């Protein structure tokens, strides 16, 4: 799978603060939006809906710790959405979906692995951009 390095210019300044070298590992393949939707809807896999609400089944099982994902694609550019997933603000409770370093006591079965693979992140981003405000 082709990988490319991300140039500094593509990312907002916050991303560099986290010291996340793995940011470089972004796939070039276009994301699969329908797979991205399935990843978000799968709370065991992505945990998104533990915190977020959004246009998904079972709204009573969605958290309210974070803004609704509805309309996210209208509020944020694709690059900003990607940055959210890879290097959220360090003060945010939202985890980095790409980080494998700078974490404490990661459980054995998750150690050294990011929450989502680069391809899965692409898929999620591809889906998020489709979430337009009505």
């Amino acid at each position: 799978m082709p990988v490319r390095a991300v140039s500094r210019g593509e990312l907002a300044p916050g991303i560099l603060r986290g010291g996340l070298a793995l940011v470089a590992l972004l796939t070039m393949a276009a994301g699969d939006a329908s797979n991205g939707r399935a990843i978000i809807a799968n709370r065991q896999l992505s945990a998104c809906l533990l915190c977020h609400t959004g246009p998904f089944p079972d709204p009573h099982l969605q958290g309210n710790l974070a803004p609704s994902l509805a309309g996210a694609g209208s509020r944020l550019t694709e690059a900003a959405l990607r940055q959210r997933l890879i290097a959220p603000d360090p003060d945010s409770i939202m985890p980095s979906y790409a980080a494998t370093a700078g974490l404490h006591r990661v459980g054995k079965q998750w150690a050294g692995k990011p929450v989502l693979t680069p391809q899965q992140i692409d898929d999620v981003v591809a889906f998020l951009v489709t979430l337009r405000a009505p």
Partner: protein
Amino acid sequence: MKRLLPLLLLCSIAAGPPVDLRSGYDDASAETRAMQDDDGGNPGFLWVREGEAQWSQPAGPLGKSCASCHGDATVSMRGVAARYPLIDKATNRPMTLDRRIGECRTDRQQAEALPPESDAALGLAAYVGLQSRGMPLNVDADNPFVAAGRRLFETRMGQLNLSCAQCHDDRAGMKLAGAVIPQGHPNGYPEYRLEWQAMGSLNRRLRNCMVGVRAEPFPPDSPEMAALALYLAVRAKGLKVETPAVRP
């Protein structure tokens, strides 16, 4: 404006341990509370009854029961659970009630250890805990382990990189998936959880929360677990013991 509202709410997030203490009981549904309020309907009492029977059952080569040394638990164990964890004089380290009971079992009765989370261990702990029901938690906070426990509570951990405090101090009352985040107090343990369909110890609960953020849980008898349990009890000072509580 409507769009900004969630963000404004997030900005109003509190910092530091809760000032107005709310037991997990207060966040539970009316049915769950009713179950706890009725000793006949509270499934935790199945374990309490087992513990009560065990209290006067001899075990080990000395043929001693808990009652041989402690007599009537309703007298000798009254108020004990409200003072634990405490700093053990012999080791100068925090000692949980579960651990203390385990020590009496292995050292004083010289009987084989009761496996953690076994019905026997939970029953004894529940029976001892019940003798303090309604009394305010009042743990000695004058030791350095409290600050150590607080540090652990406030340290982000696991692949999801969350601290206990980010949920239980800062976001209590908000919803994580479908569950209301309680302030996270230890005043009901061991307790009956509907999710477990069983009684469980505080250790088990903390293990669940740590695995929930994909962290490696502290081992049950580790200094970290004891410090965390101590900090939780200090943080909940004044809340009444509810053992055996019922929670979702």
